[in-house]
């Protein structure tokens, strides 16, 4: 834990050391900041889809709304960054809570398409003349670029990328801790009960409507916070910043990372951050790549990787790791003696396995 924190704190300065300077740079710090933002967004989506079982294909709409609210608050109302991000998260959360009300009646593919509608119509709404004095219409909103506080700049020689990294990573840590405690509380257990059997949950005295709306609200709060931080890093948001492809990719990532798991959301964010680098790497290193025209088939390559990973890790990375841990002899909740026996090798492998079962 402490070592992990130390790495997180040191990361943006590492590239100034020998050896690390081969691999790290301000650009990698920028990517790590993006990673922190995706953690927040995907953590929220996992609370909704993974824990409470509600499919949302339009989650990007809430990310966009968060970014726009933060942009308007910073530019027109002149709010400081911290207040704008907090307000954007809370307002987006409230919006999600309210949108959760009509969603109560829908389920499965009907809910999926209804939520997809959110991201389909959002650009048209953002561009509409009646509100374009705030949203900036087609051209979107540009805010002033983030500024590193003088004390940080002078004492720690901190540049903008590093400053953004610390801000976003801190937010990601706080919101991950928050998600962790939610999933281990009454609220989280109610979400899971809801997902596994709505009727069963109702019988246990869970207010299904209220908890479903809360799941929508909470996940939108995360999306809004992520969107606001995205805006802070990018200092621009427009009607096409978040599109349908982005929205679908969020869901894909959460399934690849692992549904209903905190570490699953972190894995998902990691894949999301490095997916282009990964595809580029494969394109550059695949044998006979030039012959089969790999350069112009990037999309096909990514689609293929996607299908193959779903086939081989159907429960995502986190789900797969959990399964391995449980399958290991002497894993969680299994007798220590069996593990010891296994280690010493007193019996043949078969017998040891039988005794550990």
């Amino acid at each position, binding site marked *: 834990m402490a070592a992990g924190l130390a790495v997180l704190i040191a990361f943006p300065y590492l590239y100034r050391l020998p050896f690390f300077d081969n691999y790290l740079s301000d650009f990698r710090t920028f990517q790590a900041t993006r990673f922190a933002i995706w953690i927040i967004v995907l953590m929220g989506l996992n609370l909704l889809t993974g824990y409470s079982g509600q499919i949302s294909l339009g989650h990007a709409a809430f990310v966009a709304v968060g970014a726009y609210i933060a942009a308007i608050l910073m530019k027109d109302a002149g709010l400081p960054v911290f207040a704008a991000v907090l307000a954007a998260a809370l307002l987006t959360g409230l919006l999600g809570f309210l949108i959760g009300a009509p969603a109560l*009646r829908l389920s499965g593919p009907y809910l999926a398409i209804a939520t997809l509608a959110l991201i389909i119509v959002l650009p048209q709404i953002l561009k509409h*003349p009646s509100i374009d004095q705030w949203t900036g219409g087609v051209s979107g909103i540009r805010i002033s670029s983030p500024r590193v506080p003088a004390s940080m700049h002078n004492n720690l020689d901190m540049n903008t990328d590093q400053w953004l990294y610390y801000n976003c990573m801190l937010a990601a840590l706080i919101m991950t801790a928050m998600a962790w405690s939610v999933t281990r509380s009454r609220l989280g257990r109610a979400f899971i009960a809801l997902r596994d059997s709505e009727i069963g949950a109702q019988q246990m005295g869970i207010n299904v409507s209220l908890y479903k709306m809360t799941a929508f609200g909470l996940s939108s709060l995360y999306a809004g916070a992520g969107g606001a931080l995205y805006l802070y890093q990018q200092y621009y948001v427009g009607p096409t910043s978040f599109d349908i492809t982005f929205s679908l990719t969020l869901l894909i990532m959460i399934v690849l990372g692992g549904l209903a798991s905190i570490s699953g959301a972190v894995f998902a964010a990691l894949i999301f951050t490095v997916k282009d680098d990964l595809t580029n790497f494969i394109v550059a290193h695949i044998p006979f790549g030039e012959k089969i*025209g790999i350069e112009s*088939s990037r999309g*096909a390559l990514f689609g*293929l990787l996607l*299908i193959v990973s*779903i086939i081989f890790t159907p429960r995502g990375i986190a789900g797969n790791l959990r399964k391995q841990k449980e399958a290991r002899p002497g894993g969680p909740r299994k007798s220590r003696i069996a593990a010891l026996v296994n280690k010493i090798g007193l019996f043949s492998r078969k017998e040891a396995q039988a005794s550990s079962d």
Partner: protein
Amino acid sequence: MDQFIQQFATGLSTGSLYAIIALALVLIYRSTGIVNFAQGEMAMFMTFTAWSVWNWDSNFWLAFFITLIIAAAFGALIELVALRPVESGPVLNPIIVTIGLVLILDSLALRIWQGQPKPFPSPAMFKGAPLSIGPADISRTNVGVFCMSLLIMALIYLFFNKTKVGLAMRATAQDRVAGSLVGIRVGRMLALGWVLSSMVGAVAGMLLAPTLFLSPTMMAGALLFAFAAAVLGGLDSPVGAIVGGLTMGVVQNMAGTYIGSNIDITVAFVVIIAILLVRPRGLFGRKAIQRV
């Protein structure tokens, strides 16, 4: 008033386009329980195949039927290779696989046939001056697409309700374990669902290509509306797909004319969601009853 009728007719034309794609979506949902995001891309890919066949022998109907055979094989191949391995896993996985297929087919089509739109032949009977019905003009292609949707709908209805295989497919979609217990070859039924919907998609693509222009992105816009149409009509109802498609087209056109073309999509989706709130399983969808 004349303008209203003309707009209504134009809406029906656009709607018939959504309806025929929605039919393919309904077909696959009904037989496998999967919402197929790759439906539009599969149709596009098959339409390009038809174009290649037509270039080799410029007889429309020959190309049409050869493409249908290829489409059947294509549907079966996709089911066997990509969908079969994820069928028993978590519910979201097949959806993710279909999104992966979208990426693959898009990229391959762009590589094989390039991006610029291509002219696509339309059968002789669809050519000629638009038909006048009262004060409204409708192009022959749109009338043809509409009639074809009705024909496909009737065939689907007869297939599912009057044949033994159709019954077996409905049973498979409802409960795989029970289906296999009474001796239905579940795997074959699922593959058949993909074969049929791939063929309907190919028909849709070939009929729409003269109007939409053949390009890798030809289906991208229409597919989203077809989804909305299928959901509006009820994902398991072929009649619903047609009614949903036409409603979607008309509402979008009316909103564009009378409210503003910069808000038409929004209005159309608001109407759909409002209808869904009253009928959560679509206009013609059957209510799901759960036994506890």
